[in-house]
Structures are given as structure tokens and as C-alpha cells.
């Protein structure tokens, strides 16, 4: 066990942290430190026990112990925290040399130490540091031995021999230091170059790496571009298809448009023909009807000689029937024009008071025939301008008052005018039979007549329809304001006051409509 430890210790050695694990070097260092320990302890004990030199003996033992501690602490325990560890060791080994040179050791073996010391130091400190250490010790020794013959120091060996040896050592150390320094510098330069080379190599490999990455990226991008290109090509093809389709659609649409235009032209022609037909038909119808009526009237009036009593009633019936027929044809003509959008409106600013007065004046004789009052009090007593087609408004008023006269047996008809929200409102109120709630809205339809008792002259059933259409075209409206069976009724129609926005809008709409029917003079 012990043998193995020492063999192991001496051959493989225990190196200091940072030392290269050089077996030979470590073996030398350790062997000489053990030799140093043995030598120092032996000399120290000899000096103390033999009472030759007590102080020298104590110092020798002290250095021996230091060397032991050194070995234990540095070599065995590997404690790297001790500063100047190798320096302490060098001094510990170097000191016995000086001592041996003076004392000669045991029977002159001290000179052996003089050869082993530099080797140990060189091994321990390396060539350069070792050379410095050896030189320092040599110089120290030379200083100590200057004039030693006459001084207190006495050398065991011959003064000259030792001095020659020391000089030789100093020179060898100097030479070693010199070459070592050069080689160190060289190696530093080489190291630097190597380092530079490594750095350059690193940079190059980094560059190569980044180049490689860039290339890879480029490849990825290229493939992506290829993909995108093919996608784009596909899209382009799709777009071209769509464009083709669109062109086809466009052509189809154009054809359709042309067809529609032709159809429209035909329709317009037909419409015109219809309009002309209605105009001519009504004219042609009215001419003989008017003639029949005129003949009947003249016979009744006695223009052709005395009429016997029994013929008067049938002649009157002929006249009345013909009159109704004329009214019906007139109304049908109006309806046809309204529905074709060809009724012309000549909108002017007119005084509603004057218009009403004209109509009521012309109808007063008719009211008197039935013993009815027909009253109108001018609104505000001054002209109130509203936008209207005077003839159409007169037609509406005649229709409303005519209806009231027809369905009123006692009392009378009153007209009232008021302004409401930029509109003129005209009320026609009678004390007639009134209208049932369920019939009120129906009355404005075509061919609708109130279902009332009594013997009354039949109308065409178109009057209120025509009135409503005309009033609405002029921007107003017509409605039944109030009506109750047996309590009379009030019809109200409105017209826009002059220069209000409503009036302007209506005028624009009317003129626009006229533009769309340019064939209508």
C-alpha cells in the first residue's frame, strides 16, 4: 500500500493546477523535493544535536518543514489558492544548496546538490523563469562570498572551484534565458499569427456559413417565386377566361339592349298610335253625339215647329242620355291621357280666390234651380297665389261642387280656403246625404259611385279619380275631410303655394315628363 503510493507519487506525480502533466518533470521535482526534505532535516538535526550551529540547524529544519508542507498542500491537496507556490518551493529547494556549499554536507555530498538544484529549478519554473532564479541565487552567492577568506563566511569547498562553477551556471542561465526569450517571442508571434489565422478561419467559415444560409434562402425564395409565377400564370389564365366570358356577356347584353331598344321604339309607336286612336275615336264619337244632342234640343225648343206633348218626354230622354254619353267620352279621354302620362299641365301662379269665384259664379244658376246656397268668402280678401293649371283646377272644383249639388237637397255648399304648411287647402262642404265610412276611399277609384237613395242624375264614376290624379300631378292631394251619413261631407284638395320648394319640385317633374314625351306637342 505504501509502496504503491510512493511509486505512484514519484512516477506519475501530482501536478500543480495549470502545469502540464509531464511525468519526467514531475518525477524530478518530487524526487528532489523529497531529497531536499531529507537533507534539510538531517543537517538541521545534526547542527542542533551536535551543537555545531544552533541557528543554522533551526533554519534548515524550518525550510525542511516548509518543503513538506509545500508537498502536502500543493502536490497532495492541490490547493491552488496559495500565492507564489512555485516560488516558495524554488527558494525552499535553493536554500539547501547555499547551505551545502558552505557546510559541504555529509562528507562532501553537498556539491551534488549544486548540480541538482538548477535542474530542479528549471524543471519547476520553466526555462525562462528558472534561468532568472538560478542567476539571482548565483549573484546572491557571489555577493555573500566576496572576500570570504578574511570574512566570517567559510566555504567547505575550494573558493576558486565554487566560484568557477557559479560563473559557469550564471553564463548557462544567461544563454538559456536569451534563447528562451527569443523562442518565446517567436512563439508569441506564431501564436498571434495562429490566432489571426484561426480568427480568419473563423471569419471565413462564418462567411461560408452565412453564404450557405443565403444560398439556401435564395433557393427557397427562388422556388417560392417559381410557385408564385405558376400561380400568377394560372390566375392570368383564369382572368383571361373571365374577360372572355365578360366579353361574351357584354355582346349578349348589347344584343339584349338593342332588342329592348327596338321593343321600346315599337312600344312608343304603339303608345302613340293608341293615343292617336283615343283622340280620333273620341273626336269621331263626339261629333255624331253632339249632333244628336243638338237635334233633340232644337226639336224640343220648337225650332222645327210645334212639338206635341207626348213627344217631349222621349226627346228630353234622348237629350239627357246623349249628354251623359258626351261626359263619359270626355272623362274616358281624360283617364286615357292620365294613364299614358300624356296629360299636359300648364303650371302658372294664379290667385286661388279668383279661380274659385269664377267657378262658383258659373254654378250659382244650377244651385238656384235646386234652391241651394252656394257661398264663397274670399280668403284674407286678397289674391293668394298658388301654382296650378287653372283649367284643371276649375275642372276639379266643378266636379266637387257638381257632386255636392247632386247629393244635396236642402241647405247649401260653402267653400273655404286656408294655408297649411306651404300649401293652399280648399274645402268644399255641403249639407247633403254624406258618405258612409266604408265608401269614402272607394269613391276615388275608377267607375265608383256612392250608393245613395233618391233619384239623382247618374255620373260617369270617373270624376273623383280624374280629380285626384290631376291634383296629385300638380303637387297637391285630395281627400274626404269629414263625412257622415245624413250630415253632409267636406272634400278638401291642396295645391302648393307659389315659390315654395314643393311647387318648384312639381314644376321640374312636369317639365321632365314633357321631355320624355317630345312627340306630344
Amino acid at each position, binding site marked *: 500500500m505504501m509502496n504503491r503510493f510512493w511509486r505512484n507519487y514519484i512516477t506519475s506525480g501530482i501536478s500543480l493546477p495549470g502545469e502540464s502533466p509531464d511525468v519526467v518533470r514531475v518525477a524530478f521535482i518530487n524526487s528532489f523535493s523529497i531529497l531536499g526534505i531529507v537533507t534539510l532535516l538531517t543537517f538541521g538535526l545534526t547542527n542542533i544535536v551536535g551543537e555545531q550551529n544552533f541557528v543554522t540547524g533551526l533554519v534548515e529544519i524550518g525550510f525542511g518543514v516548509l518543503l513538506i508542507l509545500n508537498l502536502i498542500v500543493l502536490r497532495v491537496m492541490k490547493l491552488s489558492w496559495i500565492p507564489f507556490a512555485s516560488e516558495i518551493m524554488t527558494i525552499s529547494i535553493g536554500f539547501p544548496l547555499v547551505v551545502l556549499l558552505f557546510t559541504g554536507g555529509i562528507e562532501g555530498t553537498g556539491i551534488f546538490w549544486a548540480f541538482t538544484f538548477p535542474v530542479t529549478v528549471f524543471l519547476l519554473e520553466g526555462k525562462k523563469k528558472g534561468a532568472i532564479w538560478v542567476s539571482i541565487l548565483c549573484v546572491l552567492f557571489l555577493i555573500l562570498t566576496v572576500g570570504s577568506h578574511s570574512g566570517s563566511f567559510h566555504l567547505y569547498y575550494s573558493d576558486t572551484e565554487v566560484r568557477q562553477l557559479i560563473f559557469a551556471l550564471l553564463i548557462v542561465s544567461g544563454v538559456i534565458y536569451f534563447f528562451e526569450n527569443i523562442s518565446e517571442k517567436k512563439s508569441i508571434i506564431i501564436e498571434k499569427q495562429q490566432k489571426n489565422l484561426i480568427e480568419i478561419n473563423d471569419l471565413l467559415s462564418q462567411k461560408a456559413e452565412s453564404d450557405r444560409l443565403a444560398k439556401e434562402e435564395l433557393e427557397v425564395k427562388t422556388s417560392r417565386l417559381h410557385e408564385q409565377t405558376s400561380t400568377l400564370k394560372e390566375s392570368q389564365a383564369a382572368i383571361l377566361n373571365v374577360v372572355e366570358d365578360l366579353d361574351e356577356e357584354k355582346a349578349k347584353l348589347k344584343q339584349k339592349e338593342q332588342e329592348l331598344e327596338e321593343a321600346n321604339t315599337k312600344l312608343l309607336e304603339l303608345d302613340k298610335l293608341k293615343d292617336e286612336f283615343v*283622340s*280620333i275615336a*273620341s*273626336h269621331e264619337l*263626339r*261629333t*255624331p*253625339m*253632339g*249632333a244628336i*244632342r*243638338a*237635334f233633340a*234640343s*232644337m226639336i224640343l*225648343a220648337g*225650332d*222645327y215647329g210645334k212639338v206635341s206633348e207626348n213627344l217631349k218626354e222621349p226627346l228630353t230622354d234622348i237629350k239627357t242620355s246623349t249628354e251623359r254619353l*258626351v261626359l263619359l*267620352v*270626355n272623362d274616358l279621354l281624360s283617364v286615357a*291621357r292620365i294613364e299614358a302620362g300624356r*296629360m*299636359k299641365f*300648364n303650371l302658372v301662379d294664379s290667385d286661388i280666390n279668383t279661380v274659385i269665384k269664377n267657378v262658383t259664379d258659373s254654378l250659382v244658376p244650377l244651385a238656384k234651380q235646386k234652391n241651394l246656397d252656394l257661398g264663397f268668402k274670399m280668403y284674407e280678401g286678397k289674391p293668394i297665389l298658388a301654382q296650378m293649371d287653372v*283649367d284643371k283646377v276649375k275642372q276639379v272644383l266643378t266636379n266637387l261642387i257638381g257632386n255636392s249639388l247632386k247629393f244635396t237637397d236642402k241647405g247649401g255648399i260653402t267653400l273655404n280656403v286656408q294655408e297649411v304648411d306651404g300649401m293652399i287647402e280648399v274645402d268644399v262642404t255641403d249639407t247633403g246625404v254624406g258618405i258612409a265610412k266604408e265608401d269614402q276611399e272607394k269613391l276615388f277609384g275608377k267607375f265608383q259611385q256612392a250608393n245613395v237613395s233618391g233619384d239623382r242624375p247618374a255620373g260617369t264614376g270617373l270624376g273623383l279619380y280624374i280629380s285626384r290624379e290631376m291634383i296629385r300631378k300638380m303637387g297637391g292631394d285630395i281627400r274626404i275631410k269629414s263625412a257622415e251619413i245624413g250630415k253632409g261631407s267636406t272634400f278638401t284638395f291642396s295645391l302648393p303655394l307659389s315659390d315654395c320648394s314643393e311647387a318648384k319640385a312639381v314644376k321640374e317633374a312636369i317639365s321632365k315628363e314633357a321631355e320624355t314625351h317630345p312627340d*306630344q*306637342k
Partner: protein
Amino acid sequence: MHKILIVEDDEFYRKIYKKKFEVAGFEVDVAVNGEEGIAKMKSFMPDLVFMDLMMPKMDGFTAIDTAKADSTIKDIPIVVLTNLSTSDDAEKVKGSGAVDVIVKSNVDPQEVVDKAKEILQK
């Protein structure tokens, strides 16, 4: 005795108005179209003319224009007596120089006579 000229292409209306005005005590002459109407206005020299609009050869509008352009007859008042086919014709009549317009089918012949008397009194 006032002289009345009836310019009318319809045979029955000519008969009606001729009879009515004669009964009412007027001297009456008739023409069947605008052209004849103008000639009769010059030869007969009526106090008042009743003029139809839709007539063959020369229509009422042309006849009125012709009459108004002729200094010998331009002062004879003309009343349009028609069955208007469209409301636009009414507008046209207003600007034609006629003193009034009567829709034949809407009035009694007596009203036409009354209208003539009213105009001639002025």
C-alpha cells in the same frame, strides 16, 4: 240683320247651326272647308264666322291665319266651333286670333246663338 258664316265639313252640324241661326233671325251662309270659308268671307262679308278646325282641303287654323293676313277680311271676328281632339288644340286656338272657342258636343245650340249675340253686341 246680322250675317253669320258657318264653316263646317260635317253635314249635320251645318244643318243644325244654319237652322238654329235662321230661327234666331240671322242671315246664314255655310262653307264646307277652309278654302271655301275664305272665299265666302270675301263674297258674303259676314258679321261673325263660326269655324270648325278639322276639315279637308284647308283646316281651321290655316283658314284663320289666311283670313287674318287678308286686310279685307281680317277684322271679321272668328269663333272656333269644334270637337277638340286634344287639350293642346285649345292652347293653339288661344294663340290663333280667334275670339273664342266652343266645344260643339258640350254645348246646346242655343248657347252658340247666345254667344254670337254677345259678341255682336260689343
